């Protein structure tokens, strides 16, 4: 069957009904992304970059893009649809790392390869893994706070949704760095909460309440991502504290970078999404063509509990501050100064 996103370029003969496995040409790659609300990267970066790279490498390959809107069951349905549509490779960024194992099992049965993208699918024999490490993201945020908070300072932690496995990993990474400092009294944890649904509205209320509770005695705020950071800055600015307190972030969104330029947000964790997408596209096309990816791309292995080490491409998340914006996100073409200064 034909997929719609990657257009009518390759419609010849592939629209015949019934055939469930092979569809003409060199085949379909399914890109399964998790949501549209926790970060804009999936729609604005991963999808276009991945699709463009695939086209560049193999103009006859098709990309079948799906977004699960944050629901693991939906993602499973989408994987089933992709397999039904005859996809040969699934590139899956799991909504839920553990739940996605069933996708791998099903794909296995149908002879379809799976690349675990950005987040590791746990306890399943995936073929490749391309990612930034989630716990590393949390560690970078935690380290930034550790480095930029005056001794004895009070830290507020606004974590992501507790119903989101990734949020748990971010928080875990941050705590790994900060907990020893909290314990030995170097820093004080004044307030910590998870934010239902990553909802910025909830984040705003939480920060307002944190400030009220601590009587504005806040010396640093660890925010799980840029979306929540925006809310946190709103709450800080109502107390005229915006820009006076370090605030972390993640995803290097235009809005987040905008705040960094304004000086109200201190850092964001930049994951070079275009790079990640390109590497994943390369692996997928290689699999499609039946080739083994070269070993200078696959730079390591990762254990996901499946018994076998998973060949992996591990990319390094980078801390972006006002000082290195030019050298990172702008240089990579991730975004432009114009978009940052004038989001949208």
């Amino acid at each position, binding site marked *: *069957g*034909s*997929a*719609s*996103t990657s257009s009518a370029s390759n419609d010849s003969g592939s*629209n*015949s*009904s*019934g*055939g*469930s496995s092979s569809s003409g040409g060199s085949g379909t790659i*399914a890109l399964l992304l998790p949501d*549209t609300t926790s970060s804009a990267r999936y*729609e604005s970066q991963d999808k276009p970059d991945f699709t463009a790279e695939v086209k560049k490498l193999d103009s006859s390959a098709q990309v*079948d*893009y*799906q*977004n699960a*809107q*944050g*629901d*693991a*069951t*939906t993602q*499973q*349905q*989408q994987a*089933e*649809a*992709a397999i*039904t*549509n*005859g996809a040969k490779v699934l590139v899956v960024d799991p*909504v*839920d*790392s*553990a*739940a996605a*194992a*069933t996708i791998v*099992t099903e794909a296995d049965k149908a002879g379809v390869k799976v690349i675990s993208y950005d987040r590791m699918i*746990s*306890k399943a024999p995936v073929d490749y893994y391309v990612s930034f490490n989630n716990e590393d993201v949390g560690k970078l945020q935690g380290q930034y706070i550790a480095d930029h908070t005056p001794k004895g300072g009070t830290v507020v932690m606004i974590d992501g949704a*507790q*119903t*989101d*496995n990734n949020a*748990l990993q971010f928080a875990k990474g941050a705590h790994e760095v900060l907990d020893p400092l909290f314990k030995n009294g170097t820093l004080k944890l004044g307030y910590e909460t998870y934010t239902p649904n990553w909802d910025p509205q909830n984040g705003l209320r939480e920060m307002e309440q944190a400030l009220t509770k601590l009587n504005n005695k806040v010396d640093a705020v660890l925010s799980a991502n840029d979306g929540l950071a925006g809310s946190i800055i709103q709450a800080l600015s109502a107390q005229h504290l915006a820009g006076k307190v370090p605030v972390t972030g993640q995803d290097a969104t235009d809005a987040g970078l905008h705040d960094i330029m304004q000086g109200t947000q201190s850092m964001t964790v930049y994951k070079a999404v275009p790079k990640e997408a390109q590497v994943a596209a390369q692996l997928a096309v290689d699999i499609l063509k039946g080739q083994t990816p070269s070993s200078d791309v696959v730079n390591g292995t990762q254990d996901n509990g499946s018994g076998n080490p998973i060949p992996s491409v591990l990319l390094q998340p980078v801390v972006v501050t006002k000082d290195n914006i030019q050298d990172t996100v702008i240089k990579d073409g991730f975004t432009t100064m114009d978009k940052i200064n004038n989001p949208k």
Partner: protein
Amino acid sequence: MSTNIQQQNGSSAGPFSGFRARIASGDLGLIPVIIALIVIWIMFQSVNGNFLSGRNLSNLILQIAEIGMLGIGETFVLLLGEIDLSIGAVSGVAAAVLVLLSVAGVNPWICIIASVASGGLIGLFQGFWVTVIGVPAFIVTLAGSLGYQGILLAMLGSTGTVPISNKTLLNLTSTYVTPWLGWVTVIVVVVLYAIGSFLMQKNRENRHLPAQSTGSTLMRSLLLVIVSAVVIGVLNTYRGLPVAGFILLVFVVLFAFITQSTVYGRHIYALGGNKEAARRAGINTRAIKISIFTLAGFMGAIGGIIGASRLGSASPASGGGNLLMDSIAAAVIGGTSLFGGRGSMWNALAGALVIGSVENGMDLLSAPSSTKYIVEGGILLIAVTIDTVTRRRRTQAGR
């Protein structure tokens, strides 16, 4: 001064008489939603030839199994004129109970029983609060759904997703009724149906009550043969009827029987139609209400078990997302009234199929998220609009 009780079309009428009378009176039952379903299917099939393949239908059946179970539970509650907003959260808690016990090494069947029992217990609690304390079901179940989400987080919040390793539990949704067994099932069902209809017809004729004609009975049996043979035939081109779908069907048939043909079912409709009249007729309205909320809790748990089995895990997000709205929508799209007293289990199944087909089809087309949302909303609206417009005759025919 003559008494005059009109008789329905007697046994002399043609095979379509019942059908024609229904059209005339505007009481179309399942017909509108089936028309909507057929239109949706033709639409998707014409855009993507895989849609009606055995494999995709098999996917579809597995995909609606959970919504279907929840939709049945919700239908019971809606028949009473109440609503259950916690059925999604209940399914999440039940999934967590199942998985945590299983991980602790408990026998899978005991896990299932414990999980279903936890759902029933929650339902019982809600039924008690609604019935005895008298707090509106909307609030009890809304507050409940918050509470159960909290319980779920307390159970899984620190560990996150917990995978299932037990094969029995995983197999619930990954095994299929083997092709020949499928055929045997079809034959058994059709024969039972035909015999049942025939006996009922004869019984009524013997008592000189209006009855279906033999022709009509034959026609219905034939239709059942054709539909079920086609479905099984198509599914057998892949792996056969998924066991989860079979279980769903068994539930639908069982509960359809209970609502249509038992005293308990009759009392449910009475309560939904006029609570005070039912009470004055000496019906134990409290017992029925409590039992229905308990039943909804059970069905929520069963849905949760199927969901967990399909995902191979339970997580703090289990039972969240669109599950609740989908299950209410399944019931309502099928034609069950939100105000009580009208609807059936078959409606829930048909509604779940409509929702499932739309989601399945849109995924198959891999449309952008924005388009998906818009098209899903549009199809939902159109499906129910068809139902409304065809039913309008009935509204005009009365109030």
